């Protein structure tokens, strides 16, 4: 029974718990066992987790079982375990953001989304690996070693949230939270064959999310099905007075939209294919799966048209100006004074605070973080602000206008999520520009604040690896992508004869340092 539990969806598990056929303790233990079996550590295994909190998760599971026995579950997902990206503050649980500079930091407070998980009774299995401060598309920039793609342990799981996506793909957790600044939920979803959603900007609280680029960051669900994403999205979403950019208005029900979509009828739905985000530059197998998915949408009754968003070609450059500016300022707080790493410069007697800051920030930050801090510092300095940050913010307006014009014509926009399937570890590590190109199709949504979803569209013929299909909707119309996504998911299940992840190779048992009682790495 235990092995089966880890392969069930969150919605199934919630139903099992409600029916009394399993307990939260049983399924939490099953996932902890799976983590112990396949997660390994920096040198082998999936390495999706940076910290595993077996004790805390089991205690929360026991409390959940008691609530259920008393007939008062706290939420629909009460008792279903979850993993949390290590960029979200968790009270009493280490939060490193994948960086040496925060090694050992234990936040004295919970992010709002984490507080909501706890209040809803979801046992937190642990914290998942990520590119340092969410800067990367491969999780290779984690200071604690890369996460490996469960489809092929030689390949990247995407990034920055490779840990959360890989944990889902490896059946180590039924649910996870990720964050998406330029594609960090959706691109890992695409290359691991899982589902990931970046909600409308302001739809989910950012309080407690260690910011990379505040005006672009969003927290969102990482799951194996569209319905599971809807359940988790509804649970963590909604207004938060602690986040000034949080939207204070009710959203249409996402779970209802997903259930309705799963019935398979998309009559009257207009789908726009973004001219600038497909075709040339996309791997043939990825493009083929994308076109096949379009055909399935047409079969379901949708009208598919092509829509041009000409300024999207500037989205990547715009992003790589705005993001480093905000990041360089956000990361200034890591200075060895109040928390985290403190490194004394070598060969200096009685160093000053400033010298300690410099030495710590050199030792504590990795290359990619330094690149972006320097880039942001440059673009914000006097004389350059207008040329870089100012210009980028104006192009951002144009990108938002392109979206607005496109959504006049269609209900949702679609594209492949990422241009390729998972590449080999190390392949693009020292070529930042090549790495940045992974986010080409995901970045426009962040710049405009609109919601985006990635779901698996199948396996590319040339390498047998998962490809992703992206659905974008207007701000605050997140329900539309759940409807279309659920319909496509149902059609694809039929096409592939079941969930795509059933085709992933079995993972070898690991003797890595992760055990059910402690932290790895």
């Amino acid at each position, binding site marked *: 029974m235990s092995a089966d539990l880890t392969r069930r969806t969150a919605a199934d598990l919630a139903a099992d718990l409600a029916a009394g056929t399993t307990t939260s303790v049983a399924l939490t233990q099953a996932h902890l066992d799976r983590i112990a079996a396949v997660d390994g550590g920096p040198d082998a295994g999936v390495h999706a987790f940076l910290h595993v909190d077996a004790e805390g998760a089991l205690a929360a599971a026991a409390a959940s079982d008691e609530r259920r026995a008393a007939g008062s579950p706290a939420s629909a997902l009460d008792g279903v375990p979850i993993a949390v990206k290590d960029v979200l503050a968790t009270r009493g649980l280490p939060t490193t953001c994948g960086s040496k500079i925060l090694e050992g930091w234990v936040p*004295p407070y919970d992010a709002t989304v984490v507080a909501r998980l706890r209040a809803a009774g979801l046992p937190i299995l642990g914290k998942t690996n990520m590119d340092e401060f969410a800067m990367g598309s491969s999780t290779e920039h984690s200071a604690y070693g890369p996460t490996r793609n469960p489809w092929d342990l030689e390949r990247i799981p995407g990034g920055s949230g490779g840990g959360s996506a890989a944990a889902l793909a490896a059946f180590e957790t039924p649910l996870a939270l990720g964050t998406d600044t330029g594609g960090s939920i959706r691109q890992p979803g695409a290359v691991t064959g899982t589902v990931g959603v970046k909600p409308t900007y*302001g739809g989910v609280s950012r309080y407690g999310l260690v910011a990379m680029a505040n005006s672009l960051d969003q927290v969102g669900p990482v799951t194996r099905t569209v319905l599971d994403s809807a359940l988790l999205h509804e649970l963590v979403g909604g207004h938060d007075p602690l986040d*000034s950019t949080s939207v204070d208005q009710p959203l249409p029900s996402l779970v209802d939209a997903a259930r309705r979509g799963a019935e398979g009828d998309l009559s009257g739905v207009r789908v726009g294919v973004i001219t600038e985000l497909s075709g040339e530059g996309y791997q043939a197998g990825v493009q083929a799966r994308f076109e096949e998915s379009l055909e399935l949408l047409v079969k379901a009754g949708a009208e598919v048209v092509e829509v041009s968003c000409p300024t999207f070609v500037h989205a990547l450059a715009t992003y790589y100006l705005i993001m480093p500016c905000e990041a360089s300022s956000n990361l200034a707080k890591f200075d060895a004074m109040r928390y985290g790493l403190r490194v004394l410069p070598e060969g200096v007697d009685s160093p000053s605070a*400033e010298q300690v800051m410099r030495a710590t920030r*050199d030792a504590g*930050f990795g290359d990619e973080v330094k690149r972006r801090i*320097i880039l942001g510092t440059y673009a914000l300095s006097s004389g350059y602000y207008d040329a870089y940050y100012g210009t980028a913010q*104006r192009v951002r*307006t144009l990108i938002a206008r392109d979206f607005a014009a496109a959504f006049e014509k269609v209900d949702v926009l679609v594209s492949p999520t990422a241009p390729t399937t998972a590449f080999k570890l190390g392949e693009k590590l020292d070529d930042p520009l090549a790495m940045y190109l992974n986010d080409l199709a995901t970045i426009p949504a962040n710049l405009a604040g609109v919601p985006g979803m990635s779901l698996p569209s199948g396996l590319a013929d040339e390498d047998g690896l998962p490809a992703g299909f992206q659905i974008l909707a207007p701000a605050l119309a997140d329900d539309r992508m759940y409807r279309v996504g659920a319909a496509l998911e149902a059609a694809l299940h039929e096409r592939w004869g079941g969930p795509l992840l059933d085709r992933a190779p079995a993972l070898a048992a690991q003797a890595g340092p992760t055990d059910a009682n402690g932290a790895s790495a």
Partner: protein
Amino acid sequence: MPEITRDEVEHLANLARIDLSDAELDHLAPQLSVILESVASISGVAGDDVPPTSHALPLTNVFREDVVVPGLGAEAALAGAPESEQQRFMVPRILGDEQ
């Protein structure tokens, strides 16, 4: 757009309080130039009549009532401090003022 020189990277690292080694400077300067060259493509894309977007959604006037809420307490506040003394954060000597 200007190429970013090694000296410039050193100056920026200084502003950003990062002690870059010579090897890091050699490594980073050309990479940053390539990135900058590529992002420079957007100059001229948007005319001056296009207003900048700093917030994705047009919210204004999000305020909080002036009511005290419980904070952390000194113990929790100082729990993560590399060093503390007299219920304060202990930091290395500070050189001059920078305000």
